[in-house]
């Protein structure tokens, strides 16, 4: 089996996780910028973080033959401080030109506040001006439905081409909104929140499977770096063909991410399984 992990916060994971992913058939790993679990004091902290995402993590992944790519942004959890946000936004263009940077992400909303919305719009502006891909985080739990609607309004208002934006962490109450708007949808596999493998496959069976991907979003919280191959196994147990599984966990992310010229998979992974 081969798969792409399109959303993993590897700065929070051990080298053993990289090895386990490579052993499980991972062909590339993509890492969005996110919240570190605490608010950073200044833009300097983000400069170091962006270096970690674009230099250190690719080197760690390369030890296991894994191409590593990054998305850059200020996470919505740190968007309330508009002064800090402007300082970080000013840093992003300098890093965007690096060949292993996929685009702007994971931007979005957390508590659906006015300041979060302003910072989301500023990120979208940068992406549109530079014609970069967008990865959007949708809020947690009771805030997800409202936040998803607000996010879709922003993407529409800024003229984002639907096929250039993936809206992540969809669940049963938001997946249709995202797909009907023409965007790609990401289903995140978490032990407690977001989706289980069984619910994820239910959504794949019911909706536009060709514009959905699965991700582990593994980070420092309850999460599972091998969630995608585990869900692939679940899909096979349910009776889906190997080709259908391959299309979901490998073909779909490769199709979306190949809009970035520098994206590539591990050597040999692009050969038919």
């Amino acid at each position, binding site marked *: 089996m081969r798969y792409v992990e399109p959303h993993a916060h590897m700065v929070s994971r051990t080298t053993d996780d990289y090895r386990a992913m490579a052993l499980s058939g991972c062909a590339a790993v993509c890492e969005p910028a996110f*919240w570190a679990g605490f608010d950073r004091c200044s833009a300097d902290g983000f400069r170091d973080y962006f270096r970690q995402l674009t230099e250190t993590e690719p080197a760690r992944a390369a030890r296991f033959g894994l191409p590593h790519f990054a998305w850059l942004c200020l996470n919505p*959890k740190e968007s309330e401080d508009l002064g800090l946000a402007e300082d970080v936004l000013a840093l992003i263009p300098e890093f965007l030109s690096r060949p292993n940077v996929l685009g702007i992400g994971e931007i979005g909303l957390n*508590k659906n*506040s*006015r300041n979060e919305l302003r910072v989301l719009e500023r990120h979208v502006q940068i992406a549109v001006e530079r014609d970069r891909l967008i990865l959007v985080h949708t809020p*947690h739990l009771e*805030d997800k*439905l409202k936040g998803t609607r607000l996010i879709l309004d922003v993407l529409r208002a800024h003229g984002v081409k639907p096929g250039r934006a993936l809206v992540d962490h969809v669940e049963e109450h938001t997946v249709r909104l995202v797909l009907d708007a023409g965007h790609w949808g990401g289903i995140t596999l978490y032990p407690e929140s977001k989706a289980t493998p069984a619910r994820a496959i239910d959504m794949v069976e019911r909706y536009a499977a060709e514009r959905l991907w699965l991700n582990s979003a593994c980070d420092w919280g309850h999460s599972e770096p091998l969630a995608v191959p585990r869900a692939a196994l679940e899909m096979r*147990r349910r*009776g889906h063909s190997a080709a259908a599984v391959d299309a979901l966990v490998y073909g779909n992310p490769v199709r979306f991410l190949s809009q970035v010229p520098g994206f590539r998979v591990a050597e040999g992974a692009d050969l038919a399984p």
Partner: protein
Amino acid sequence: MSRPPEPWRRREALADLYYMDARARVLDLAAFLDRLDRAEGAEDHRLRSLRAALALLADGKEDRARRILESWSDPTTDPAPAAGSKGATGAWPGA
């Protein structure tokens, strides 16, 4: 002659795969409700939302997962004046 449905569209095959897991979850939920009964104090919005969802589980209509998630969601449309805390509780307090 029509082909038989794929395995994931056959109830028996789905029961073979998921029945024991669902059985365990139902028992866990039942035990949780019993535990709450034995405890003291008022119930907050999370527990009230959970009890409301039980009615949706048993109403016999489709799309239970979507409808339960919607019942736990913030139905307002205007952006919040400020973020306040970073976390979420799992159910909208105003429900």
